[in-house]
């Protein structure tokens, strides 16, 4: 079968790989119908995530038709069109029992800090991902969900990560009615976090980014007040001034370690790898949130450590909340929001490309070319 094949930083191609097999009684093999490239795939693409092995297939946002199931699979059957959450979760362990499906302890041998994630390096379990014709899906009774008849598969594929991650960013922010919410990053997750902040009752939603075309999109889509941080002298001072001197009630980091906007952070984080990615949005968030406020982090950082003003976290009494989205826990609620028209996920898709254009799709998304917000790869399209 054909699959995306990582060859090193900035180098990916389509290669022939062996068909995935049933390796555990709860496995399924799924024929991929749609697969997205995610902003967090760019951390892999840039070589920032330790234990990203040559030959691996990326892709944690996909949906497809169940082709084959293991002997213990009961709830999905061949022929079902399913969306597959990016978390690999057993559904039974201490963490899954509490709805923390993003923190499963039975899906990642290589690390305990993070649960298994499709196509996301060996640090997240060493599973091949969905940017391929076929993919192995463990715990097929737990994660995958049959796509409702009425739902567009383009909406479904965004429910595997982007929508729940953006939604959980807003949920963890503990937004109270009237709150001023700032989102750093107008990528798909930031766009969705801004949109969902309203669902939690925000009174004012502000988004910072450096790409005007993305800011234009989120200004209309969320809708939100938008600012290009390159045109703002000092983001933190700007935020204080626009909030009566107090700072925002809530700051959301929807960027993670690939951030730009501060030379020292970029040099030490993105280039020299002295810290686990450049922590610019996190730095801004901690310093622009008001005392007693909440910083919600969904941006992806590496496992080692980052330069953040932790002293200010203490002095200001900030609550930091963060997690990988628990997709399965949120799906029923989010499907309801799509049905009622509260969110329109597929509006974020700007590019549809065949799987064999995978190298160009990565470059286009990484370099923000052609107004790209969310690219989808279609294997048999």
């Amino acid at each position, binding site marked *: 079968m054909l699959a995306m094949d990582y060859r090193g930083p900035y180098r*990916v191609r389509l290669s022939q790989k062996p068909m995935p097999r049933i390796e555990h009684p*709860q496995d399924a093999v799924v024929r991929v119908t749609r697969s997205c490239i995610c902003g967090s795939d760019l951390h892999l693409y840039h070589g920032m995530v330790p234990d990203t092995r040559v030959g691996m297939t990326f892709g944690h946002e996909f949906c497809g038709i169940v082709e084959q199931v293991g002997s213990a699979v009961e709830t999905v059957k061949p022929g079902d069109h399913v969306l597959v959450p990016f978390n690999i979760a057993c559904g039974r362990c201490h963490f899954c029992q509490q709805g923390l499906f993003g923190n499963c302890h039975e899906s990642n041998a290589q690390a305990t800090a993070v649960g298994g994630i499709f196509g996301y390096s060996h640090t997240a379990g060493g*599973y091949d991902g969905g940017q391929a014709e076929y993919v192995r899906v463990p715990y097929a009774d737990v994660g995958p969900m049959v796509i409702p008849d009425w739902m567009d598969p383009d909406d479904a594929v965004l429910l595997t990560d982007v929508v729940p991650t953006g939604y959980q960013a807003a949920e963890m922010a503990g937004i109270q009615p009237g709150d001023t919410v700032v989102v750093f990053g107008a990528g798909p997750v930031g766009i969705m976090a801004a949109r969902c902040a309203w*669902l*939690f009752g925000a009174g004012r939603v502000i988004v910072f980014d450096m790409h005007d075309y993305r800011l234009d999109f989120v200004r209309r889509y969320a809708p939100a007040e938008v600012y290009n941080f390159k045109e703002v002298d000092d983001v933190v001072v700007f935020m204080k001034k626009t909030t009566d001197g107090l700072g925002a009630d809530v700051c959301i980091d929807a960027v993670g370690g690939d951030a730009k906007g501060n030379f020292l952070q970029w040099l030490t984080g993105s280039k020299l790898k002295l810290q686990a990615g450049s922590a610019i949005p996190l730095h801004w968030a901690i310093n622009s949130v008001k005392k007693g406020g909440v910083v919600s982090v969904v941006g992806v950082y590496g496992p080692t450590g980052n330069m953040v003003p932790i002293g200010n976290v203490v002095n200001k009494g900030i609550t930091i909340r963060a997690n990988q989205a628990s997709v399965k826990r949120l799906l029923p609620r989010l499907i309801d929001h799509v049905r009622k028209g509260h969110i329109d996920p597929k509006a974020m898709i700007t590019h549809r490309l065949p799987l064999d254009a995978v190298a160009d799709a990565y470059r*286009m998304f990484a370099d923000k070319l052609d107004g790209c917000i969310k690219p989808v790869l279609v294997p048999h399209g």
Partner: protein
Amino acid sequence: MADDTTPRAAVALAKTRSPHLVDPATIPGWGVDADRDNDPTYPMRDQSRDVGLTRDWDRPAGQMPDVEILQSIEHVRRPAVVGTSSPPSGVSGMMRRAAFRWSESNWLHWLLLLGADRVNVVEGVVEDLAQARIPNIPAETGIRAQIAFNKRGLAKKTVVTAGIAALAVGLIATRRGRGEGASDNVA
């Protein structure tokens, strides 16, 4: 006081003002998920079924992988399901095995893995060549997308790369020249 550009409902609700305020009344689903009980432990509330990891619970059956799986030393045992993509091999594999002698809190663990990733890239090229395949690196880096949408950036990058290469060649040539001169003197 609201100015003309500030919608009314937003004024009533938002804690701060801005000429760009959005009126929440225009947003479908505004406030439907507001939850005053959302506190920092959410959703980790139900600890009643905390059975740890080693006590008796309905643990999934264990997978029997047929490839080498490296395992964090922080695990009390191998997780029930494991990924079998790209098992460790070659020099990078040796480095990865070494890395797993240290825990996830040790920098050495991650630095060795990052180092192994770089070695692995070279191994990937060697593997391609061994299969009589010359990797099409421009295509792998998405040059078609750059030609289509970013000619100027690509040109700049090419000029910079060529410049650095020329400079390097020049430096090496000068060094060589000097080296030869020195040996001449000795002779």
